[in-house]
Every structure is written in C-alpha cells, then in structure tokens.
C-alpha cells in the first residue's frame, strides 16, 4: 500500500484549484492502516468545495477514526480537468489523507445528498478501478455502501451499491464496522462477498439490494421482495434517540481553500415537524430531537476557539424553532472570548417579524441580505403545501427586514406544485412587487429576488403520488412569471432549469430499471449533472428511450392510491395512511399544525420506533407559529420529552 502522491503531484500544476487534492485540513487525521482495522473511504460524489462542509460525512469520519477497529479517510469527485489528467496518467481515485488508492480500502462509502450526483457515483467507482455493477465485483474488492437522504429511494442505485444505510449513521456505522471486521478477520481465501452482505442485511437499518428482487408486470413494478433468508421484508431507518449523546463533529474540518459554507456549523436539532408536504428532509428525519442549549454553546465556544472562524451557523431544518434560540444566540454574540466579531447565521429562517428582530440583533456585522422561503405565491397554495405563512406574517417580516437596514431580500418559491393554477404563479410576482413597495418606504433602492425552483416530488412525502410538471409546463409558468414581473423596478426573478428538474425526477422516484439509465448517461459522458455547464437532458432522454422507458411513465405520471412504490420495502417510519391522508388534505387545501405542540397525527415516526420528540420548550416559539393559530392548550399529549431548562 503506497502513497500515490509522487504520481499525483506532477498533475497538480496542470489543473484548476489544485488545493482540492492535497488534504491537510485542520482536523484531518492520517490514520495508520493495519490488519484488524477496517479502512473506510468516505466519498462525497461532488467537488471538494461542495462536499467538504458536509456535516454527515464529517460526523462519520470522526466516529470511525475514534474506534480502535476502524479508520476513515476522504475523497471527493475530482473536477473534469483533474479526472482527465488522472486517467491519462493512470492514477486512480485516491484519498486525501494518505493519498492511497481507493482500492486499498475495505469499504467505499458514498454520501448521497442529491440525485443528480448518481452518475458521479458510477464515475468514481470506475475511477477507483472497480466494476460499477455490484454483481461484477469480486470477493477481494472493497465493499461499496451509501447513505444520506437519497438512500430512502435506493432502487436507482441498487445495481451499483452493495449496501445502503438508512437514517442516522452515528450508531449504525459502528455496527456495520463490526460485521465487516469479523468478515475480514477470516483468511482471504475464506471470504465470500455474499456472506458479509447477508450479515450486513441483519443489521437494522441496512438494505442489501442484491438480496431482493424487483418484480414487474406489464412494464410496471409490482413488488420488491426478499429472495434470501437473511433479508428482512422491510428495512426500517435508524434514529438516534438523543442528539446530546453525539456532540459531533468535535473537530470540524477547516479547509485550506475556499469552500461553500466556510464557517463553523453546529447542529441544534435534527428532524422537523412543521410538516411542509414537499419537504423530504422534514418527513424522513422525524422526530424532532433538540440538542441541549448548554451543549450547543459549548460546541460553539470550543469550535470557534479551535478553528479561528468568525462565523457560526446554527443548523437544522428550521433553526428559529429551536427552544430558547434568542438566549442562545445572545449568549454567543455576547461572549467576550469572541471579541464581538463573531456573527451567527441562522439558515432556514422562519418567516415572521419576530424572527427578523432576532436576526437583526445578531447579524450586527454582516448585513448583506435576508432570505425567506414562502414557497407558494398565494395563501391557497401555501395551505396546499402546508407552509402556513399568512400574508400578515410575510409582509411583517419583509417590513421588519427593510426597517432594520437590510436592502436585499431573497424569497424562495416552488412552481409546479400540486393543484397549482396560473394565479398561484402570478401571485409570486404580485407578492414580490408588494415587497419592493414595502422596501421603498425605507430605502430608495431595494432588491427583491424571487428564486423559483421546479418542484420534484420525493419519496416518503405526501406528494409522492403527484405527477411532476413537464418541462414545457414549467417553462410556460416561468414565462408567465417573468412577464408578470417585467418592468417591476427592484424585482428580479431567478429560476432553476426545468430540464434539470426533469432529470432529478427520474432519479427521485425511479425504480431499479433506472440503474441502466444512469449507467447509459454516465457512459455517454454525463458526469457533474448538478452543474449547469455539464448538465444535458438529452442524455437522459436517450437513455430512457434505450431502456424502453419514458419521462411520462417515470416522472409525470400521477400515481394511484395503491401504487407500488420502488421504496415500499424501506421505511422512514411514516405510515402510508398518514401520508395518503395528508395528500388528501393537501388536495382539499387544508393545513395541519406542528405536532410538537399539538396532538399527534400518528405519522409513525415516534410511535413506530418507540421514540419521542426531544424539545426544551412546551410552547411554540414566540411570534406565532407561522400563522397556524395553534391551540396551545393541547401541548403535552404527544410523545414529547421536555429537556431540563438550562439555567
């Protein structure tokens, strides 16, 4: 096992941003490979700048490296110039720590955060010198595993990945490591790949696709069933009951070169029960588990001291909902050790004036722009998607933002949502114009950016039955919106490429047959499909056609109530009845309240897993609950455990 560095080094003067390939980050470790120590290569299948900040990967990196029987190194997708240089020099995919070949590892583990990276997964396996198809890999080849949100529909990658890990990885990764370690303890001649995969299938939360068969009738999936006694009928996701037990990352990586989100990140809670129906993350990460505020403060304090960062993000799916958020941020910005120069950022701001007030109090230093996500242009649309922001809350928030000195407000919207009418799309323009008017009361020149994405229905959400809008329909709606916003001074409309939404739709709800499509796109050169300069929908359409499939069948078709979904045999804990009822509520334009503070809907996330929400506050945060008008009296009848209040 030799370092590839001497062969990598001469390539670096030929490529852009060579610092992507050198490692050496503060917090990185260079583990020693030895028998009895399972070597993991954790791979983020996109560029270094995008992948390095990923907290999930960093958490597993630390947990594995703390174990005596495991080690972990990292790799990211080399950019196209580096890939070409590597291929022509015969240099395989390598780790950043010891610069070892990917083949020198026992396990190659991919983080799947977005569907459009799937072709990169194949490309990286190929660059590692492995067969991309699991069935063609041998007993001596590394195991290929994958986890992350996209693992909740594993079928498009079922032919390429040996095992998927579902849900929180903190505990699961150690259990998987033990299984692999026991297998590797045997003499090489006695190691059968099937045996370790069967043993992995016995670990709760692990899905081994080769032990299941997808059955079709008349060109449509009728079931995915176990064909091996080791395989459970249904694989349930793993959930860490208490985030306080896992204060990771403890040593967040500090990159040597610029990356996205280049700051300290501290996760304040996991899970979300706001119940936005388009949001897969909010559905599959339930229940809500808050980190105790004391621990948050400790992680912030230590993290800033260790890294020298001047910015900390308190991360979650809706950070303004963290119990005692105000006290927590006040304590961070007021800490004399931070020299009054640390700014706190709250990604995913809730939309109300109160939240803006909090933001104003803490973002003393950097006041570039505020971002809100109303998602729908009309109150009707927002009831459909269950993002229950009243006009009053929204305009109050915008008024507060401009009044507090911000000049730039960014609003996120989705188009192509269920039941959408043209008036909902036009509502986005009307809303944007109104926001500019509000801003002009405070400043002569303001900017309101309406950023519009084409909605892609996701598995394990109430919208999984919905037929996604076609490219033409999304284009028409964008045009409609642009025309309505034309000539409005200060209002800018930005939109996501509708063609990319179509390709994302293929991978999002596709079944096992999509594997062949992904492979064709990759073989045709379609890597980095998340990057507009490399994305090409034609590759996807040609691949679909070659496999006898169509966008209509895979993406745009409305699913029926008893539809057999490709992900029916993996579970995020959610009852199908709950999702169906919520889908019907959506079609009836009926919102539902946040179950943290109101009665339980029995979605299944808590009850099925014997879990409960872990929340510090018995009441919703001040400033209303995004206009739900929740009946707070009912709080407490749900499986909620309240954390002891800190100080």
């Amino acid at each position, binding site marked *: 096992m030799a370092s590839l560095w001497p062969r990598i080094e001469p390539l670096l003067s030929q490529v852009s941003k060579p610092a992507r*390939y050198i490692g*050496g980050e503060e917090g990185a470790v*260079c583990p020693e490979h030895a028998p009895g120590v399972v070597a993991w290569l954790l791979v983020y299948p996109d560029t270094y700048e995008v992948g390095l900040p990923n907290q999930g990967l960093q958490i597993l990196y630390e947990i594995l490296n703390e174990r005596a029987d495991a080690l972990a190194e990292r790799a990211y997708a080399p950019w196209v110039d580096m890939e070409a240089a590597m291929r022509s020099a015969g240099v395989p995919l390598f780790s950043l720590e010891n610069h070892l070949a990917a083949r020198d590892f026992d396990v190659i583990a991919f983080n799947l955060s977005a569907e459009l990276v799937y072709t990169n997964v194949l490309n990286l396996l190929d660059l590692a010198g492995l067969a991309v198809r699991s069935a063609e890999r041998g007993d001596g080849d590394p195991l290929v595993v994958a986890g992350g949100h996209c693992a909740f529909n594993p079928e498009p990658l079922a032919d390429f990945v040996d095992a998927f890990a579902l849900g929180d990885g903190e505990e699961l990764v150690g259990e998987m490591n033990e299984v692999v370690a026991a297998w590797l303890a045997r003499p090489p001649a006695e190691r059968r790949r099937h045996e370790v995969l069967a043993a992995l299938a016995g670990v709760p939360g692990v899905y081994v696709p080769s032990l299941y068969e997808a059955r079709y009738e008349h060109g449509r999936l009728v079931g995915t069933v176990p064909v091996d006694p080791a395989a459970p009928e249904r694989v349930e996701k793993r959930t860490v009951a208490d985030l306080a037990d896992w204060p990771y990352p403890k040593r967040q990586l500090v990159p*040597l*070169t610029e990356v996205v989100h280049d700051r300290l990140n501290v996760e304040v809670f996991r899970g979300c029960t706001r119940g936005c129906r388009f949001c897969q993350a909010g559905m599959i990460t339930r229940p809500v588990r808050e980190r105790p505020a004391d621990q948050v403060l400790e992680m912030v304090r230590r993290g800033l001291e260790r890294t*020298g960062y001047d910015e900390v993000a308190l991360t979650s799916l809706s950070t303004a909902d963290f119990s005692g958020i105000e006290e927590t941020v006040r304590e961070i910005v007021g800490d004399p050790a931070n020299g009054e120069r640390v700014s706190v950022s709250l990604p995913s701001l809730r939309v109300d004036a109160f939240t803006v007030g909090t933001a104003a109090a803490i973002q003393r230093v950097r006041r570039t722009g505020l971002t809100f996500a109303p998602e729908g242009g009309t109150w009707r649309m927002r009831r459909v998607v269950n993002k229950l922001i009243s006009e009053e809350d929204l305009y109050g928030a915008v008024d507060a933002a401009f009044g507090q000195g911000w000049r730039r407000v960014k609003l996120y919207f989705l188009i192509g949502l269920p039941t959408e009418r043209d008036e909902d799309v036009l509502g986005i323009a009307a809303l944007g114009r109104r926001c500019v008017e509000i801003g002009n009361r405070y400043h002569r020149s303001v900017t309101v950016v309406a950023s519009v994405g084409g909605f892609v229905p996701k598995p394990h959400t109430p919208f999984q039955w919905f037929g996604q809008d076609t490219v033409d329909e999304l284009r028409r709606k964008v045009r409609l919106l642009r025309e309505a916003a034309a000539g409005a001074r200060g209002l800018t409309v930005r939109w996501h490429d509708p063609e990319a939404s179509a390709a994302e739709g293929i991978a999002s709800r596709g079944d096992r047959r999509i594997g062949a499509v992904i492979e064709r796109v990759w073989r045709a050169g379609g890597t980095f499909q998340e990057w507009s300069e490399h994305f090409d929908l034609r590759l996807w359409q040609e691949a679909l056609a070659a496999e006898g499939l169509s966008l209509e069948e895979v993406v745009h078709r409305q699913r029926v109530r008893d539809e057999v979904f490709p992900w029916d045999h993996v579970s995020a804990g959610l009852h199908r009845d709950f999702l169906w009822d919520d889908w019907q509520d959506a079609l009836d334009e009926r919102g539902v309240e946040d179950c943290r503070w109101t009665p339980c809907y029995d979605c299944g996330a808590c009850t099925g897993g014997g879990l409960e929400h872990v929340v510090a506050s018995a009441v919703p945060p001040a400033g209303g609950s995004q206009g739900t008008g929740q009946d707070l009296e009912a709080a407490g009848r749900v499986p909620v455990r309240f954390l002891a209040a800190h100080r």
Partner: protein
Amino acid sequence: MSEAGPGAPAERLRFRYTKLGKIRFTSQRDVARMWERALRRSGLPVAWTEGFSPRPLLSFGLALPTGHESLAEYVDVRLDPASSGVPPHRGLRGTEEPELLAQVMTALLPDGLSVVAAASVGVVGSLQQEVTSCTWELEVRGVALRELSERIERLLDAPSVPVRRERKGHWVVDDLRPSVLRLAPIPTGAREEPVAQVTHRIVADLATQPRGVRPVELLDGLGGDLALVRARRTHQWVERDGLRAEPLAPGTPPSLDRQACRGAS
C-alpha cells in the same frame, strides 16, 4: 526597525514565513485566510477594517504564484492596542519575544507554513513597493545540462529578450532581459541520463519593479521546451542604505512538517 521586547507597544508586527510542501498548491487568497484564522486564535490585538465585514489589517508582500514554494514570505500585521474584546488572559499581546511570537504563530498555522522570524516594526512602506527583487531556485527539465548552460549564457549576453505574456486579455511583448539580474545553473553532479528525466537546478534573481517577473516567464525566455518542475522563492530583497537586504532575516531555521503525511513532500 526595532526588535520587539517586553513592554514595548508595537504598532506593527512583521512575520517572515515559509510555504513548503503540499500547501504550496493553495493560493495567496487561501494563505491570507489561514493567517486571519490564526490571528483570531492568537489573541493578538489586531487592528480591524471598518464596515460590515471587518477583516484584520494585513498586508502581504508580493503574491507567490500558486504551486510555488517559498522560504521568504512576509506579512505585516497592524496592531491596535485598544482592539477590543480579546481578553488579556488568552493568547498573545504582541509584546512577546520574537522567538515566542514565531513559535506560537507556527503552531496556529497549518503544516507547511512556518514562521521563521518576527519583529515589531514602526511605520514602514508596503512590502509590495519596497521589494525590488527576489531570488528563486528553479528545477527545470527538458534539455541537457550543456544546452541549458548555453541558453543561459545567450540570454545573459542578449541586449533584449522579448517574451509574450497575457495582460487583460491581450498579448503583449515585454523585454525580459532587464529583469534578469542573475541567472546560473546550480551544479548537482548528476550523471548524464536521458534528457527527459534529468532535472537541473537554476538560481535566478528576478526584478520585481516595475512589475514582478514570474519564473514561468523566465522559462519562456530560455525556450518553450523547458518544463518547470519546481520553483522555490528563497529571498525577497529590499534596498537599504544602498545595499541589498532582507526585510527580515530568518531567526530560527524553518521547522518542516510536524506530521509526515500532511504537509510532506
């Protein structure tokens, strides 16, 4: 220029540092950010810029091209004794012995960046304006040693050496010759081997005024068939009382990488 001593209020600290090993593939901007983070951790009472995004007031010397190494990088750090918010019990005050300042900053910087000298300096001109030339050690490949020596002599004998370079999207022709102050092969005693595999070492003094000439331009001047294998800046020079001097002489020898696998090579 006064050496830092206990109790002496410093207006400005000058650090000399190395950039060696893998970290040479980071950019000048990257290095600036590494210094900012290290200075925040150090507790030094650094002066900050005004505005919504306060940054420490740092001025670096001549930018080092990405991929090149250096034994002689410099940064001037403006101090503000009234700089608020840093508790005196944590970290440096700026009045410590130079050796201690150098040691602490080295520990706070990533592997490959080592502070080899530190000094308190008064109000000084910017390094960018004061530095007049740099010494480079270059490793090149592509021709036999005899051929290389002849080319070096020809270059030094020529009244002018036109080289093309891109400036703001246009190709311009510059005369390289006045900027080459010294150029000589460094004997390595290597045996004659196939040309493609032999690396020769060159030492070159290149002027930095009116503009900094880069090693790749020198290679162009020596013929386009030479490949630059490695470049290391060994000195930056200023004129002081008519003599050539370094902005800060190295105090301690550069301590190389602490962990073999990180900054090495």
